[in-house]
């Protein structure tokens, strides 16, 4: 085999290689030129509204290349693999996973001085504790997914107002939830701290709180028809009539409600945990300037709050979030002011402790 390769290589080097090299030079030059005008973004579906993308590309001459992702795990894997030589400029980070993106060295702090439209964001999200690491702001908040109860108005009466309604034997075999998120909601309902910040000095307390919520879920597994992971599964369970009561932060119920299906959503009296979806700048991004231009244009685009809500399916973090949304859309996507006071956000400081306990508890609930 070595002899065969030796006989081939001289031929390649004399003829083909020179010819191939001559052909490759203009290609390499052009690809480098194109790369300078390229902006690579990993984004969830609808997070870069198509009309805005077109307008930005036309006005700036920058070509946006979107790599779609559906959840944090594959995105984290992709970006970790590219960490030493990143090809992505902006990535999507969900508040709950911010600590992993920071710990794995994937994102860098956002220089808000370079974003003249930063003030278009609701200060509740823009200046939030969960978005600060060592005093630096780590991401640009876009939309918020709050955990809510979703129920079939014909099957669930009276309307539920507590997370504990998912354990009601009346709905045996007709309840569904995402274990990880519902575990945190159950902790909240049990009076524990789902942000884990208050347990930092005594992790035993965190383990005790997680175990109490886990045990409650395991004792009430009979009520569950199925655990879901994706919004599409929840949609199928609800529309197929297999589930009548659910916990979710997915955008699915809003779409179902707007399409006239007999479902409603409610923030339980115990409060809720909300996840903020953000755009962050990748550490050593090849087109950092383009990334800032893009983010600033997005923040400054008129009516972007409503546009994002419609394309991504979540309430937006913009000051003008409700402007341009119909009453029905506001009811389906938004959070009432009284509910907003009961919303809590996962905190960066508590996320490592949370992950170390929650993932294991999720497996235990699944295994029963």
């Amino acid at each position: 085999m070595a002899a065969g390769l030796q006989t081939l290589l001289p031929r390649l080097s004399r003829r083909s290689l020179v010819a191939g090299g001559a052909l490759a030079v203009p290609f390499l030059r052009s690809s480098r030129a194109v790369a300078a005008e390229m902006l690579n973004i990993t984004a969830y579906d609808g997070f870069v509204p198509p009309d805005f993308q077109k307008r930005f590309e036309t006005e700036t001459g920058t070509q946006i290349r979107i790599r779609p992702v559906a959840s944090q795990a594959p995105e984290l894997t992709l970006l970790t693999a590219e960490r030493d030589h990143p090809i992505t400029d902006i990535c999507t980070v969900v508040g709950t996973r911010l600590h992993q993106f920071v710990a794995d060295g994937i994102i860098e702090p956002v220089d808000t001085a370079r974003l003249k439209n930063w003030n278009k964001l609701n200060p509740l999200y823009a200046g939030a504790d969960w978005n600060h690491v060592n005093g630096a702001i780590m991401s640009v908040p876009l939309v918020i997914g709050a955990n809510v109860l979703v129920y079939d108005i014909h099957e669930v009466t009276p309307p539920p107002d507590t997370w504990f309604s998912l354990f009601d034997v009346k709905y045996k075999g007709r309840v569904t939830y995402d274990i990880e998120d519902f575990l945190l909601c159950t902790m909240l309902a049990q009076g524990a701290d789902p942000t884990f910040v208050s347990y930092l000095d005594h992790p035993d307390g965190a383990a005790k709180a997680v175990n109490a919520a886990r045990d409650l879920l395991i004792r009430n597994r009979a009520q569950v028809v199925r655990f879901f992971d994706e919004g599409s599964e929840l949609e199928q369970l609800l529309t197929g009539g297999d589930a009548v009561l659910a916990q979710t932060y997915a955008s699915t119920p809003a779409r179902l409600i707007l399409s006239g299906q007999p479902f409603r959503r409610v923030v339980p009296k115990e409060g809720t945990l909300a996840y903020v979806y953000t755009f962050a700048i990748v550490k050593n991004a090849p087109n950092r300037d383009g990334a800032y231009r893009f983010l600033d244009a997005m923040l400054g685009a008129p009516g972007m709050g409503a546009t994002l809500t419609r394309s991504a399916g979540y309430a937006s973090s913009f000051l003008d979030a409700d402007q341009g949304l119909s009453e029905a859309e506001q009811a389906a996507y938004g959070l009432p002011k009284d509910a907003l006071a009961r919303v809590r956000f996962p905190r960066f400081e508590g996320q490592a402790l949370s992950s170390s306990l929650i993932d294991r508890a999720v497996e235990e609930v699944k295994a029963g």
Partner: protein
Amino acid sequence: MTGCLRTLFVAVPVLWVALANAGPLLAMLRISLMQVYPGPPGAAPAFSLDAYASFWQEAGYRASLLRSLGLAAASTAVSLILAYPLAYYVARHVPPARRGRRLMLLIAPFWTSEVLRMFALVLLLSNRGALNFVLRWLGLSETPVHLLYGTGTVLAGMVYTVFLSMLLPLYAAVDRMPAHVLDAAATLGAGAWRRFWRVTLPLTARGVASGAVLTYLSALGVFTAAALLGGVSTLVFATTIADLFGAASGRWPLGAAFGFILLTISTACVAGVAALPALFVPDDRPRRDT
């Protein structure tokens, strides 16, 4: 030049096997031995057998593996029972000119995506699905019959997924069987059942064994059916592994280790089943007279 071309002909597939099969497996083996993945930037990885030990420490993991083994065995048995008469009918009773078309009709549904076929089952079997609609329309049930998200549904989905792995080897085995031996058995007075047990089954046993191995291995790795049709008590090992990779919290070493445990069991199954025909089934290959 001929030698060089021959070397290339061999080198390309060898390289392909090395890159496409051995490469990812070695990468996964490495991850399964890592204590943390992905590690902190710039830090050298630390290795241990912790991930493999976790399998023996957690009853839940062993339960999901046992469930997978049981469901794979059941779906192999159900596939065999369903596929054998079908293969026999197409190979022995359909005229040769029409055989290709009949086979195509059987294979055609498998040209669509597995996910699509599973979602079709969900639409068919859900509380507001077609089957419940028919049951209500016929007056057989006033309230929806819960058909989805149980062990039976997962089994049905698995059989639907792996059926072809059983059908095709069986068809090949029945098709290869010489017709005159059955005629001879009938002439000698053997009834239908006796002909089946004494002639047909032994002569197609190698096809049954190949089909069973292929089906069992495919069923062990079935993910979509379990993920889309399964309920709270139908967690299988493939979904456990997928969950570990999907957790986004450094659980990859565990997922990779479990993948290797499944691979080891699969290899043992193949070795075991491959040894069976040599012990129990007469060799049906033509022998050269000495």
